[in-house]
């Protein structure tokens, strides 16, 4: 939903790190995106192509790694990935959970030359 702002931030993280490493060109950007973050990969790539024009990241490929939502049952500590928005614990059927994964949104690594 909010990929434009995210891509602006993504691009500045990429350029800052690439410049610090005295790179000439960014070839690949490895991004980790949690399923709960609401970020759509295609939309990120779409905005990135526009925003990265005339930067050293122009034409870079974004490689996405998706991480699933992970919930931990507060009653029996079972960790599970919810299906069909059902937050009931598959083990004890309680519905008391902490979100422990799926919110990730970070640049893991860059391939540069």
């Amino acid at each position, binding site marked *: 939903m909010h990929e434009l*702002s995210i891509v602006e*931030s993504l691009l500045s993280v990429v350029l800052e790190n690439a410049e610090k490493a005295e790179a000439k060109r960014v070839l690949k950007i490895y991004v980790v995106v949690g399923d709960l973050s*609401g970020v759509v990969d295609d939309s990120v790539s779409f905005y990135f192509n526009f925003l990265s024009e005339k930067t050293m990241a122009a034409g870079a490929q974004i490689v996405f790694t998706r991480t699933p939502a992970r919930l931990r049952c507060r009653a029996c500590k079972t960790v599970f990935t919810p299906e069909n928005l*059902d*937050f009931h614990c598959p083990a004890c059927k309680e519905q008391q*959970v902490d979100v422990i994964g799926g919110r990730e*949104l970070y*640049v*893991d690594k860059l*391939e540069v030359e």
Partner: protein
Amino acid sequence: MSVRILTIKEDILGANEEKAKMNRELADKNHILMINITSSPGAGKTSLIMQTIGRLKNKWRMAVIEGDIASSIDADKVSKEGIPAIQINTAGACHLDANMIRKALDNLDLGQIDLVFIENVGNLICPAEFSLGAHKHVLLLSVPEGDDKPRKYPLMFTQADVILINKIDVLPYFDFNMGAFSEAVGGLNPVGKVFPVSAKTGEGLEQWFSWLEDVLDRRK
């Protein structure tokens, strides 16, 4: 030139988090309580703020930061009550970010304010990702939206300090199951308070006012 791999591990929204922290520090320095209010469009954020202003304006000095994609309708309503209001038009963006809040704070007389309401853009998804530096997060959900929303928008519900179910005056006309709703919210967020209210009739608002005043009394 040879190809190299740089390990980065840097949060994409890290810069926003930093700015949010600075907003919080600025508010603390001025002994201001900042409250971020989120909801879907039309759930009643502005009505809730107007009711709260009406009730508390003789006791606390308030200001409102209004986030909207366009227009200043909401800020105009607040200004009529003699309360400072800063309108942020996000020009299409679906959320407020920490930088916008900083600019709004710079336009308020912070020494003369106890409480700042931030009325976020109506949206249950995007604002959950962008910290603003607010001390408390109030989520407003209205009865016609349905009791399944905690399952559809879990992040927003896990982050809220208070969840207000608004428009309870129309409960008889909808299949909103308050028990199922409270169970789903409690499962995701055992510490969040759930207050059923009607910003129209005033029903249930007493518990919201007393929660708010209690937080104001304990602020830094």
